[in-house]
C-alpha cells in the first residue's frame, strides 16, 4: 500500500475513533509527532494509543506484534506509516 494511502487511512481512524477534529486533518503530515508531552505533538494519551492500535488492526487486518517494542513505531505518523507498510508487506 502506498504511503499516502496508509496516511489517509490513519487520518480516518483518528477522526472516527479518536474523535479528532476533521478541520485539523490538513495540518497532519508524516512528521507529525503523536505522544503527548513532546513538543509539537498531537498530544495522544495512553487511551488514544489503545484506540489507535485497535483501529489499525481492524482497518489493516493484522494483529500488532506483541513481541516488539512498539513505542518507536508510534512516535510519529511517518514511523507508524512505515510500520504498517512493513507489516502489510510481510503478509
Amino acid at each position, binding site marked *: 500500500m502506498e504511503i499516502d494511502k496508509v496516511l489517509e487511512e490513519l487520518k480516518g481512524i483518528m477522526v472516527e475513533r479518536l474523535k479528532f477534529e476533521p478541520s485539523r486533518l490538513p495540518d497532519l503530515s508524516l512528521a507529525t509527532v503523536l505522544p503527548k508531552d513532546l513538543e509539537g505533538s498531537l498530544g495522544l*494519551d*495512553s487511551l488514544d*494509543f489503545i484506540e489507535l*492500535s485497535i483501529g489499525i488492526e481492524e482497518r489493516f487486518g493484522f494483529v500488532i506484534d506483541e*513481541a*516488539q517494542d*512498539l*513505542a518507536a513505531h508510534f512516535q510519529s505518523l511517518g514511523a507508524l506509516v512505515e510500520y504498517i507498510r512493513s507489516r502489510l508487506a510481510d503478509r
Partner: protein
Amino acid sequence: MPTERDAIQKAMTRFTGVTGSQLDTLTVRVFTDFAMCFSDLVSTNRQPAARRTSHVGNVEGLERLASLSGGLISLTAHVGNWELAGRLLAGRSARPTHVVVAPDEARELQRWVRRDGEGVRFVSRSRPTVSLELLAALRRGEVVGMQGDRALGTKGDVEVPFFGRPARFPLGPFLLSSGVGVPLLPAFCLLDAQYRYVVKIAEPFTAVRGEEEAAARTWVAALEAIVREYPTQWFNFFDIWEPFDQ
C-alpha cells in the same frame, strides 16, 4: 491533616450513614488501619514470597483466578493492602504481572514498596505509549494489575454513581479489556478482625467493545460492595466525588 480528615469524614458519612462520635471513631480507624496496612506492606515486601503468604488467612474466590487462562486484568483499588494483593495474585497466577502505577507517586517510597521481582514489574503510566506495552503483555497471556478508583481528570474518565452520587472513574482498564478481549478480575486484600489479611476475588467479567461504561459500572458495584463491608479500609484521602475541586 485537616483536608484529609474532612475527606474521610465525608466518605464515612456516605458509606455508613453514621454521625457524631461514631463518625469520629470511624475516621480515626481509617488512619490507624492505613498505618497498619502500610507498615505491613513495607515489612512484607522485604520478605520472601513464602513468608508473605503467612500473613494471609483466607483467599475467597481463588477458583475464579484458577479458571482463567491467558491474559487478564487484575483490577483493584486503594482499599486495604492493595499492593500486597497484587504480589500474592502474581504468585498464584504464575504469569508475569505488570502493575501500573501513577507517576511520581511518593517517589521516595518506591524502593520500599515497589521492588520489581518475583514475576512483578512496576510500570509507570507517565509514558502515553505504555498502553501499547500493556496490550502486548495481555496478548502474550500475561497479567496487568491496575487501580480502578482514581480518576485521571482527563477525557479518559467516566462518571458512575458511587454510593448514590456521581463519581469519576478511569476508563482505561475497560478499554484494555475490550481491546484485547481479556477478562477483568476485581481483587482486594483486606484486614480482618484478627488483623490477618483476607483476599477477596470477585466474579470476572469482560468489557464489550463500545460498552466500556457498562463494564465500569460493574466494577464500581464490586468496589461498592467491598467498601460497604470494610469502610475503614478506604484509603483515598481526598473527596472521591469532587476530586478536582480541591
